């Protein structure tokens, strides 16, 4: 694979191969796949991490609240910690479902078209 490097602001004209990839990138099919992917994974990651940091911050600053007993000796903090596991498993399953249904068929189609053009 040739490594083309571009220096300076003025980009040289793309090679044939580069132009082919640029046209795949600009195609509506690819743009749709890319948007679907990003619009799912970025909010989901942000949500998962926010939930985690909420747990961490509350463990540091809301000690009394987290120490309240709910069932026997099981307190709010432990339930909150357990919910981190539940949330991780839930995000994982939801992502697999989403990727199988929405991402895989679209990426397979684009890949097949690229292979037909001898690009991949």
């Amino acid at each position, binding site marked *: 694979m040739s490594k083309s490097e571009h220096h300076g602001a003025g980009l040289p004209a793309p090679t044939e191969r580069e132009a082919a990839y640029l046209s795949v*990138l600009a195609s509506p099919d690819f743009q749709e796949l890319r948007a679907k992917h990003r619009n799912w994974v970025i909010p989901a990651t942000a949500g998962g991490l926010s939930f985690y940091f909420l747990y961490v911050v509350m463990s540091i600053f809301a000690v009394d609240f987290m120490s309240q007993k709910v069932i026997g000796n099981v307190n709010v903090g432990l339930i909150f910690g357990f919910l981190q596991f539940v949330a991780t498993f839930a995000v994982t399953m939801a992502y697999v479902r989403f990727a199988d249904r929405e991402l895989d068929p679209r990426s397979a189609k684009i890949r097949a078209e690229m292979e037909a053009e001898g690009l991949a």
Partner: protein
Amino acid sequence: MIATGLRAAATEQIGNTGLNIAIFTGFVALTLIFVIRASRTNKTTADMYTGGAAFTGRQNGFAISGDYLSAASFLGIAGAIALSGYDGFLYSVGFLVAWVVALLLVAELLRNTGRFTMADVLSFRMQERPVRTAAAISTLVVSFFYLLAQMAGAGGLVALLLNVTDKTGQSLVIAGVGALMIVYVLVGGMKGTTYVQIIKAILLIGAALLMTVWVLAQYGFNFSQLLGDGAAAGASLEPGKKYGIDSLSKIDFFSLSIALVLGTAGLPHILMRFYTVPTAKEARKSVVWAIWLIGLFYLFTLTLGYGAAALVGPEKIAAAPGGANSAAPMLAFELGGTLLLGIVSAVAFATILAVVAGLTITASASFAHDIYTNVIHHGNSPDGKEVKVARIAAIVIGIVAILGGIAANGQNIAFLVALAFAIAASANLPTILFSLFWKRFNTRGCLWSIYGGLIITVGLIFFSPAVSGAETSMFPNQDWSWFPLANPGLVSIPLAFALGIIGTLTSSEHLEYKAAEMEVRAITGAGAEGKAISH
């Protein structure tokens, strides 16, 4: 032996040690069979580094769990919960939630754009040689600290497992572990190492499950009562026992929590595992398997930790030669006597051996593939030479790990692992995410972020109370510390991200054509290695 309280049982030691050796030898023999069988197909660089990318998602999921659940996870977390209660459990949570980042943002895109190493992805559209050099250095540094922690842990376990208490004897055993690990890597390559990881993951998770059920059975499966007894013994159920002392320790804890959750997706030996499967879909499946296995294991740690506190007692654990790290083995002795102690210690030992082999193969692949072939020989190393270089590198890294492990024997294992996580989160993760999600990102941003993250993290640790100036420091009698936190992540991770952005924007280099190719390939999998096998 593990506890002062158990010393009276000196006559038991002999049978005990013999049993430990027998169980451990059994594990070595079993794994060696797989390694030797795998050696028949360990000829090319692809075999050596990725087992020919021929593993299934499920196999790789078990292997990832094997690579990830190190001695720090098994011995360290159980001990942290037994001594600190709730605060120790935060390790389990952080180590698991980290996989959300790995699954959603990194695993599949990395699989699609790289072939053998982390540097493959980072250098895809950059100026290859400087970026590869930086990525390889970062890989070697992270792997080295991770290796040190595992080898140091081996020394402590040896005292337990084989009843070797003098430093010379322990050093000899550390050397033995290192030599065995070199054999695994040289003979079996990635394929053999992967089988070792799979067997180890099954043994480790099985042992943790057995002990969890056993502990719960002692309490008539009344979890609340177990927690109550553990708390009464000293493993607090409320947050803050360890980290709630003052505002500095609270900040330190927050800093640790960032490194834990962001470090995983930047650990080179975990990233390399994504290349051992044929397609991105299999990479996804393997991470899903890994998340379930790792999640279940970390749930067990809660029972093990409180069980150790309730049944053994925090004071007894803290006073044992291995300190907090001996909680799980001591709990095993309390539950099932010498037999279960033997099994659990052998499993813990196997854990260290497997993780060390995984780290060695990653570090040697990075040296041979990135530095030797691509930086020194511009991608055209003489035929067959790269495999030879990788093998020599594995031997050298093994020897360095043995020497480092002997030097670090008795040092704080959790500190070394946390350091590896902090470096991975600072030096590796920002460049990986920028490469995959930001098309303006360029060579200068990449280099600033890697070297900046590396230097800042290691520097802050060096000047922290973890190294000097406190009773628990590596050098307690000297004091050159000025950075107040033991965990540098809070400072180093945002700085590494910022350096990546500033470096990129101050450089006029635009790489949009290569960025287009990378983006198309990352999401669609077009042109990825092993695509022919996809169906």
